C-alpha cells in the first residue's frame, strides 16, 4: 500500500507540476518524436476525425478521466471493499 501511495504521489506531483503545463517544453512523444520521424520521411498527420482543440479538449480529457476513474472506483469497491466483507463473513 505504501508503494502504491508513493506512486500516486509521484504521479500527482508529475501531472500537476508547473513544468508539465509548459506546452512548448513538455511536448508529447507523438509530437516530438513520432510525427517528427514521419515528417522527416515526407509524411504529415492529417486532421483527426473530430477535431477538438483548446479548452474543449481539456474538458473532454477531464470528463474521460472522471468517467474512467468512477468506473475503476465503482468496481474496485464492489470487489475489494464490499466483496471482501462478504468473503470474510
Amino acid at each position: 500500500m505504501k508503494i502504491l501511495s508513493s506512486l500516486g504521489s509521484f504521479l500527482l506531483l508529475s501531472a500537476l507540476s508547473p513544468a508539465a503545463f509548459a506546452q512548448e517544453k513538455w511536448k508529447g512523444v507523438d509530437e516530438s518524436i513520432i510525427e517528427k520521424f514521419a515528417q522527416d520521411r515526407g509524411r504529415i498527420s492529417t486532421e483527426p476525425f473530430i477535431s477538438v482543440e483548446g479548452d474543449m479538449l481539456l474538458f473532454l480529457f477531464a470528463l474521460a478521466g472522471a468517467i474512467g476513474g468512477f468506473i475503476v472506483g465503482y468496481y474496485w469497491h464492489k470487489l475489494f471493499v464490499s466483496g471482501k466483507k462478504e468473503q470474510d463473513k
Partner: protein
Amino acid sequence: MKKRFSVLLFLVLAAPHPALAMHIAEGLLPLEVAVFWGALTLPFLAFGIYSITRKKKESPNYMPLLGIFGAAVFVFSCLPIPIPGVGATAHPAGTGFSAIMIGPFPTVVVAFISLLLQGMFLAHGGLTTLGANTFSMGVMGAFAGFFAFKFSRLFRFNLFWSGFMAGMFANFFTYLGTSFALASGLHGTEPFLSEVAALFALLAPYTVALALLEGAITGGILVYVNKNRPDILRKMRILPPREVETK
C-alpha cells in the same frame, strides 16, 4: 492510508491534461499499411470477444475485473507523465496488469475500445491508424506482459517482481510495436529493421522511465489483490492454489 490513496488516485485521474503520447496519429500510415495492421489485429480482437463471453460465464468476478482493468487501461493511456531529463511526456499503457488479471486476448478488446474512443473524441491516435495502434498496445503490449509474468513465475520471482516484469515488458513492447508499425509504412528504400531501430532508439529514453513506473504499478496491484482478495487470483487461475496467500 486507503482514503489518502483514493484521494490521490482521484486527483490524478481527474487531472485534465490532453495526452499526447506514443500513438500513431491520423494519416501517418499509408492506407495499405493501415489496412494490413488492421487485418493483423482482427483475429486477436475476435478471439478476445469470444474469450470475454466465455470467462463471463465461468466466473461472477470476471465482469467487475473487466470493468476495473478495462477502465484503467483507458485512463492510463490518457495520462501523460512528464519524463524528467528528456523534457517531454509519454503515457503508460496499463496492458501488463490487464493481461494478467483479465487475460491477454480480452486486453486486446479493451485496448481497441480505449483507442477507438481516444481516436474519435480526444484527437489522440486516429481511426485509420487504429489497427496499428491496437496491435502495438493491445497485442504486443498485452502478450509481452502476460508471457513476462508467466516466465517470471517459472523462474520463481515473487509476485511483486513478476508483476514488475510484466508491466515493464508490456510498456517496452508497446513502444517497440509502435516502431514496427510506423517503420513498416515509412521505411521507403531504407532497410526496414534499421528504421525500426532508429525510431526505437529515439523512444528508448521515454520507455525506460515509463517501463519502470509501469512495472512498479503492476507489481503493486498484484500484491494488493493477493492481500485483499487472494481468491480472485486462484479462481482466475492467475496463481496456482498452493501459492495464493503465501506471497
